[in-house]
């Protein structure tokens, strides 16, 4: 019996491994090779040296991390209660699908809609005017940028959290309440810790792409926020310096690998503790 199971595992590994080699390892290698082959110099680490010694690029890196962090936080703050509310609804699967539905509309189009909503003569501003706040500058502000970025990432945060919340044994919160815990305490001590794996997945699926956002930074942020994504896009499409663009990409991938490894470690300790 165990032998067949092992064979299954091997088959899985084989299929998946082949795929990884063809479509992850190979492109990754190409990327690394490109980043160390500087035009006119052959093999050289000069790109990496330039990246880590140039003020603008370091400033941009710090900027990217900071904004990605803020976007993740804003998204989490909106998504967690939403996921929690969703699990309590009667037709929750239906509502969940309604959360995903907006993502099927083209991103650029939605961004244009936001320009219309947030603009000077836009709906939001005319609403504010009725309330007596006068026209306010909303576009090209950090607030608008965070809002739209969070809007786009929201479903990717809600889904894993919702799934994690649904898996919680309903008896546990009930028991907590029976034992005299307030709703707040139950949430904090029982529901939140149990939903952490979902939160972690959500944070990963939101934080990482947020590091390399590029279109919204221009359309909504008016390039007031510049991320590494902008730089990569520029190197690949404007200056055509693929070598340096690849360098930034490799740095980004390594940075994410480190982040993943660190968060992964934590999780294991916790699991050990529980058992």
């Amino acid at each position, binding site marked *: 019996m165990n032998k067949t199971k092992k064979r299954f595992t091997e088959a899985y590994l084989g299929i998946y491994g082949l795929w990884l080699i063809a479509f992850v390892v190979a492109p990754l290698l190409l990327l690394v090779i490109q980043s160390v082959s500087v035009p006119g110099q052959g093999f050289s680490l000069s790109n990496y040296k330039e990246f880590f010694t140039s003020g*603008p690029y370091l*400033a941009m890196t710090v900027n990217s991390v900071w904004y990605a962090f803020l976007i993740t936080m804003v998204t989490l703050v909106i998504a967690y209660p939403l996921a929690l509310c969703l699990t309590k609804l009667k037709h929750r699967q239906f509502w969940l699908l309604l959360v995903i539905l907006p993502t099927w509309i083209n991103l650029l189009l939605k961004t*244009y809609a936001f*320009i219309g909503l947030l603009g000077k003569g836009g709906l939001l501003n005319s609403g504010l005017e009725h309330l007596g706040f006068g026209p306010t500058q909303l576009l090209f502000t950090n607030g608008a940028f965070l809002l739209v970025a969070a809007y786009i990432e929201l479903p990717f945060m809600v889904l894993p959290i919702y799934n994690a919340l649904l898996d919680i044994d309903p008896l546990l919160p009930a028991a907590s309440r029976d034992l005299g815990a307030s709703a707040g305490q139950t949430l904090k001590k029982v529901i939140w810790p149990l939903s952490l794996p979902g939160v972690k997945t959500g944070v990963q699926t939101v934080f990482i792409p947020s590091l390399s956002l590029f279109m919204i930074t*221009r*359309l909504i942020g008016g*390039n*007031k926020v*510049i991320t590494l994504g902008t730089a990569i896009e520029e190197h690949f*499409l404007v200056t055509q310096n693929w070598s340096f663009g690849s360098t930034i990409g490799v740095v980004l991938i390594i940075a994410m690998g480190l982040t993943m490894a660190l968060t992964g470690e934590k999780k294991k300790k916790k699991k050990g503790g529980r058992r």
Partner: protein
Amino acid sequence: MKKLLMTFSGIALLLVLFIGLQFALTASRSQSDSGKKDTITFYNWGDYIDPEILKDFEKESGYKVNYQTFDSNEAMYTKIKQGGTNFDLAVPSDYMVAKLKDAGLLAKLDKSKLSGMSHFDKTFMNQSFDKGNEYSLPYFWGTLGILYNKKVVSEGDLKGWSSIWSEKYRHRLLLVDSARDVLGLTLLSQGKSVNDKNVADIAAAQGKLSSLMPNVKAIVGDELKLYMAQGEGDLAVTYSGEARNAMERNKDLAYTVPEDGSNLWLDNLVIPKKAEHKEAAYALMNYLSRPDVAAKNAKYIGYATPNKDAKALLPDSVKNNEGFYPKQDLLDKLQVYEKFNQYWTQKYNDAFLEFKLGKS
């Protein structure tokens, strides 16, 4: 498991349905195309031709047109160079023509097969990027200038490029997100050329540029016209074609080119070396050069046409508008961008990047 299976077989069914539909559509299209000659692959900017012209051309010539789109010169260059698709006709801008030519990716034009050469205005022929028009014919042209709201900005205040540094415009200016254009206008304001290749000049321009920051509200791309039409900014540095588009949506907007000169840009028709249907490409090129067709196209796109006989067919309000068809003395001051190598492209871009980062 059952639910999973049901869901996925539903999805598979849907997939089959779509594929069937696609086949039906393709079949119905090719049926009406039966008896036609070759299919020509036209690689152009999105929505950069009146679709009716393509239909008329198909009817008239018997060729079928496969219209493919790109969103930047550089992206187009990558695709043509990689060679996965054989494009028959493409529309690069001026400096990109030079780049494609130098990379050996363009086919030389056979002048004997071109019937529309006499219609073109000499001002736009024989440019530095393609001397003697050996590889390209102009498609549309325009300038870089200032789009402003007549209600709050007066044209008299916008005589030179330096005027946008004025404290009056604090936090009111939108800039086009392009290193070459923004640095170029700064160089012009300092009496230099847009093609300046002098490190000290570029450093000086960067210095001057950094003091523009308080005026800048945002640095944006194609959507600039949308923002201006919505009244997000009071003035903006942008291209004439974009300005025209915004002015159609908002009557308070106007466009001017500062007197110290500007950039002249041209989009051009070229035939890539790997084109498989060159005869068809020539046919389409000639068709687009016909004055009546070029005029129709110009009306649809709104950019300035280099075809002087087509220009004559345009309404007076368009052809006499100095913003879009400047007088000769200003026209003489316009400079076409020369192709930069990677070193200088990088130099300009680094300067622009530092300018952008200096904002926060």
